């Protein structure tokens, strides 16, 4: 439990909590990038440099931008501001708090007290080697999934009205 971890944890939780609590949707996504960057920094602290940089590129770089684009495409400037929280917000908050209580109790009573082993020396070359040998089938399936998702997202989001006229 180092000071660096505590600082990163506070930053991450503050960013994500702001992302879920702010009224303006664009502010939410901006706060979310802070939370995602905090998680990436925690990956770096856990000696998973490659995953940390992937997190920054995919989440901070792509998913947040995608969400901002979606917000801008669905905002109507003339409409009156709708309420931020849904009608059953109290039930939802109680469920989330209950889930956290159960998880925290399970973690604290689990007795997981192992000390971290020595820092592993993992190079990007090793990761690439195992992606091309041991994990080549999952890699190919992932490429297929990403292609299908890309085509599917474009087809779903496309405007079909002009063709039907």
């Amino acid at each position, binding site marked *: 439990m180092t000071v660096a971890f505590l600082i990163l944890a506070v930053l991450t939780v503050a960013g994500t909590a702001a992302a879920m609590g702010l009224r303006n949707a664009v502010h939410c996504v901006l706060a979310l990038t802070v939370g995602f960057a905090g998680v990436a920094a925690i990956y770096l602290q856990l000696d998973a440099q490659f995953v940390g940089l992937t997190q920054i590129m995919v989440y901070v770089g792509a998913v947040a931008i995608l969400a901002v684009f979606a917000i801008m495409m669905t905002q109507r400037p003339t409409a009156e501001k709708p309420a931020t929280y849904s009608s059953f917000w109290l039930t939802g908050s109680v469920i*989330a708090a209950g889930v956290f209580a159960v*998880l925290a109790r399970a973690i604290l009573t689990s007795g997981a007290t192992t000390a971290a082993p020595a820092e592993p020396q993992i190079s990007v070359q090793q990761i690439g080697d195992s992606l091309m040998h041991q994990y080549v089938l999952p890699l190919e399936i992932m490429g297929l999934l990403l292609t299908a998702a890309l085509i599917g997202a474009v087809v779903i989001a496309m405007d079909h009205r002009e063709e039907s006229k």
Partner: protein
Amino acid sequence: MSSLQGYLLLSALLFSIGLAGALTRRNAIIVLVGIELMLNSANLNFIAFWRFGPHPEHLTGIMFAIFSISVAAAEAAVGLGIILAAYRHSKTTDLDQMNSLKG
């Protein structure tokens, strides 16, 4: 409290924040973002267990996290596409007003 438990507690907190957002917000995009947060907390668990496990020199945890991040990215793209299609149909992203299946 060991440092592994610290990471697991942080991950549980992130999951609960994402769940609270997904259950209480009215904007469909913010609900999707909350689901992304829950996926992120699962990735944090993968990395924490990999680092504190007996064999961190094997790349299992890293590979799992990388593939999980890819699936989350695909899910975000398809989810936002669905939200755009639903917005075009019902002219709103307010989930409390999207209450009919047939429109």
